């Protein structure tokens, strides 16, 4: 097992330091779901295909280590709300050991 530490700030503003495995082919959205840091049905609705923006996060540090945004992610962020310069779809961020110490904040969920 090779875990890294990620700090996730939930939608209520509470910070949680969680373990994220680097050997399970996981993405950040799945880590958030795994630790139940956002209610089911309000995150990762599309399953991680960059099609719903419910997993939008604000990257608080290590932005230079983030993978490039793909077309689908850019397209989805154009249709999303509460988008900031540091917004990313967490389903598009693969958990790598370089991301140890990453801090992210989950964006608000727009029920409409």
């Amino acid at each position, binding site marked *: 097992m090779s875990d890294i530490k990620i700090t996730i700030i939930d939608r209520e503003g509470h910070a949680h330091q969680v373990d994220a495995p680097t050997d399970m082919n996981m993405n950040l959205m799945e880590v958030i779901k795994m630790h139940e840091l956002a209610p*089911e049905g309000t995150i990762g609705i599309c399953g991680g*295909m960059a099609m719903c923006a419910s997993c939008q996060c604000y990257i608080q540090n290590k932005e230079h280590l983030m993978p490039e945004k793909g077309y689908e992610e850019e397209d989805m962020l154009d249709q999303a709300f509460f988008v900031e310069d540091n917004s990313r779809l967490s389903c598009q961020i693969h958990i790598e050991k370089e991301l140890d110490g990453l801090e992210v904040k989950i964006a608000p969920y727009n029920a409409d």
Partner: protein
Amino acid sequence: MLIIGAGPTGLFAVFEAGLLKLKCHLIDALPQPGGQCAEIYPKKPIYDIPAFPEVLAGDLVDNLMEQIRPFEPGFTLGERAETIEKLEDGSFVVTTNEGTEHHAPVVVIAGGLGSFEPRKPPITNISKYENKGVSYMIKEPEDYRDKRVVIAGGGDSALDWAIFLSDVASEVSLVHRRNEFRGALDSVEKVSELAKEGKINMITEAEVVGLKGDDHLESVVIRHKGEASEEEIKETDHFIPLFGLSPKLGPIANWGLEIEKNAIKVDNSYDYQTNIPGIYAIGDVNTYPGKLKLILCGFHEAAIMCQSAYQRIFPDKKYVMKYTTVSGVSGFDGSKKEAKREVVKSIN
């Protein structure tokens, strides 16, 4: 059986029902069968369908359509199931948004993530102006003739409508959060051309954050990006936010079904029936302890559900589950598929 949702799970339920001689009709809000697989990711490969090391989502749908063809399912496509009424005899009438009525003894909800509806921007008073200046889609372009229109969004539909309405409306403004647009290249070029000619008023690095007006929309509040976050009030007759579609459980959420985690609660220990006897929910739309949202799980749920639905429809009939390798498949169209005799080996 009436099946709401023509995605993979709904389609496979037709097959399982057909083996029991139950005829099915499907309703789907999308214009073609296949659900998300056909609408959103037809060209994406799926790797976890048993015995298919790799299959494109679109091909999976085509194969399912071929598999259920002998059972001649009916389709009502492009209509959304809106209301349900339970009749005295325990059967149901489901009415679509177009007013089409379907009557069946059993209703199966295989609605996946729900029906895809326009995404509404999080502007607090937006619902107040719906149909009073705010619309999420353009049904009748003539409604905008000689009117002032503000469109928000940066995708193809925002660009295409901005181009189209630039000839119809008296003024078209396009508000987008970035300087770049991700629509089709020729649409992007056309919009910038029209902007240069002054036919489209481009407002980029900005978003609409407020709406004003007494009875009807009179102006929008536009916030420009930047440290000062300055706000601009723009008078307009119409505001059309075009931010794509997102899945919603929709009217089904008001059918009196027990909802948990944005999904329909079912009894997974028995038959995937909901809290309303005679209404089942299978596939991604349901939830139960240990639920996995996988197509293969939807297939399993469809098979189990059909046994229970059969007993509900024919309470006095006895039934024994049959294997297709033994009994073959007899279609309602008179077709019959069965194993050739010589395929069967004797056991010594």
